[in-house]
């Protein structure tokens, strides 16, 4: 053995304590990295899977009011896989025993395989077709007020006072983190999301044959930019509130099997602030 190799071995022997400590630190670091990497990969996969199962929209395009025929034209834009034309309106709820006003977003929902931003039910079911008195509430609000299936819910929507019955409690990829308009934190006791059956919601908010918000899902690998430009051209006569924009967390799906981390893991909460004028 060469003298320098002997020197190395002896020096390592003399430094065995610090060397072992350093090796343990490195091993702990590697172990932490491997486990965190595994957690990260697992969470990333769970998120992608959740959004995929919920058919999370890639693009949202809010308008003041547009006829449903425009949604059919949007469907014809190359690269568009599915569209969902929703009606939405603000509401005020009367919560017994709760002195402060409670606001809500009334939004339409579809309960079919082609629906976008599908509602997941923690309890109950979707409102029956044509039943304007059946409603699904978001889970956080239900927990805050200890609501259960069958409970009545009095709401003022579009100047009309209606009495709703809770038939479902759940959420959707679009409303994972519900923040009231103008706020930066959730306020589950004072703000709710109410899902009504599409036609019943349209009747309630006076938007039969129209929509307020277009959710668009693209084919895998489709470039969103030309689609957004086409949507802006299509919707601008109908009071597009702002440019159609991609939903951050949905971008990975379009790029293939290894999506990058989205800038946000929730839908932009400001989106819920938008009210039809």
């Amino acid at each position: 053995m060469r003298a320098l190799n002997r020197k190395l071995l002896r020096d390592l022997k003399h430094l065995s304590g610090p060397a072992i400590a350093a090796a343990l630190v490195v091993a702990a670091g590697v172990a932490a990295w491997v486990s965190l990497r595994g957690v990260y990969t697992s969470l990333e996969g769970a998120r992608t899977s959740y959004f995929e199962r919920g058919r999370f929209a890639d693009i949202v395009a809010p308008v003041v009011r547009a006829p449903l025929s425009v949604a059919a034209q949007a469907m014809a834009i190359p690269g568009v896989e599915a569209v969902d034309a929703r009606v939405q309106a603000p509401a005020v709820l009367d919560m017994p025993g709760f002195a402060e006003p409670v606001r809500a977003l009334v939004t339409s929902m579809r309960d079919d395989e082609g629906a976008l931003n599908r509602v997941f039910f923690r309890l109950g079911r979707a409102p029956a077709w044509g039943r304007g008195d059946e409603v699904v509430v978001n889970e956080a609000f239900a927990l805050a007020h200890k609501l259960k299936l069958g409970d009545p819910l009095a709401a003022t929507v579009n100047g009309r006072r209606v009495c709703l019955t809770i038939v479902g409690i759940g959420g959707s990829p679009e409303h994972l983190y519900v923040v009231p308009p103008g706020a930066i934190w959730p306020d589950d006791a004072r703000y709710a999301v109410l899902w009504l059956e599409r036609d019943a919601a349209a009747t309630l908010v006076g938007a039969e044959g129209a929509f307020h918000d277009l959710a668009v899902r693209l084919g895998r690998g489709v470039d969103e930019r030309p689609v957004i430009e086409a949507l802006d051209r299509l919707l601008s006569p109908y009071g597009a509130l702002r440019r159609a924009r991609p939903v951050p967390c949905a971008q990975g799906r379009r790029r293939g099997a290894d999506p990058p981390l989205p800038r946000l893991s929730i839908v932009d909460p400001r989106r819920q602030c938008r009210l039809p004028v």
Partner: protein
Amino acid sequence: MGRGTATFAGLAWSYGATTTPAGEATAVLEAHALTKVYGEGDTAVHALRGVDMQLFAGELVVLLGPSGSGKSTLLNILGGLDVPTTGTVRYRDHDLTVKDEAARTRCRREHVGFAFQFYNLVPSLTARENVALVTEVSPSPMKPEDALALVNLTNRLDHFPAELSGGEQQRVAIARAVAKRPDLLLCDEPTGALDIATGRVVLEALRRANRELGTTTCIITHNQAIARMADRVVYFADGKVARIQKNTEKLTPDELQW
């Protein structure tokens, strides 16, 4: 009497001849008009101020001078560890003032041995292994055991530096310097950290290396007594050679007194 040939940077030269055919001593190393300046402007320090010097084959030279006179700077330049600000140093037919660090390193490795006041031994290696560090990278070294025998350390081959006295450590350093059979051995205050008795033993080791291997040896010291064992004494002062004295009678280290 020629001892062989060596190559360096693509050049070949013969070495080891101590005299010319006419019987004149051969200069193996020549320094001419050496200056060395550290810093610049008002703060410049002139360590060497125009040194002319020769070392002849097989001789033992003592370079004598007070502290701060530039001796160590000169030794570093003669050994190719440093380059002068101006002037030339030629070893045989090779220029040692080239800027090519790799070329100077190869030259040092093959032809120059160093011993310093502080021994610079590797603490985790035995005496034999410290010498082996050099023999493993030298082209035609002697065995580490033979080098240590030359400095009378046969019985300390497997001792670590911490188990050796200061004199013994210095002798290991000298054995390490001569183990590669250098043509030139440069020693900077080799007895500076030793008492008289130990210093004599170390000087005897240097004398044996000089006599038995024919190594041209240059010892730097500020100890006047050591000058009497040299073939020539170069007196150094204020960055210059003050005078050169040739000893007609050399003393052995045992006869030195200081």
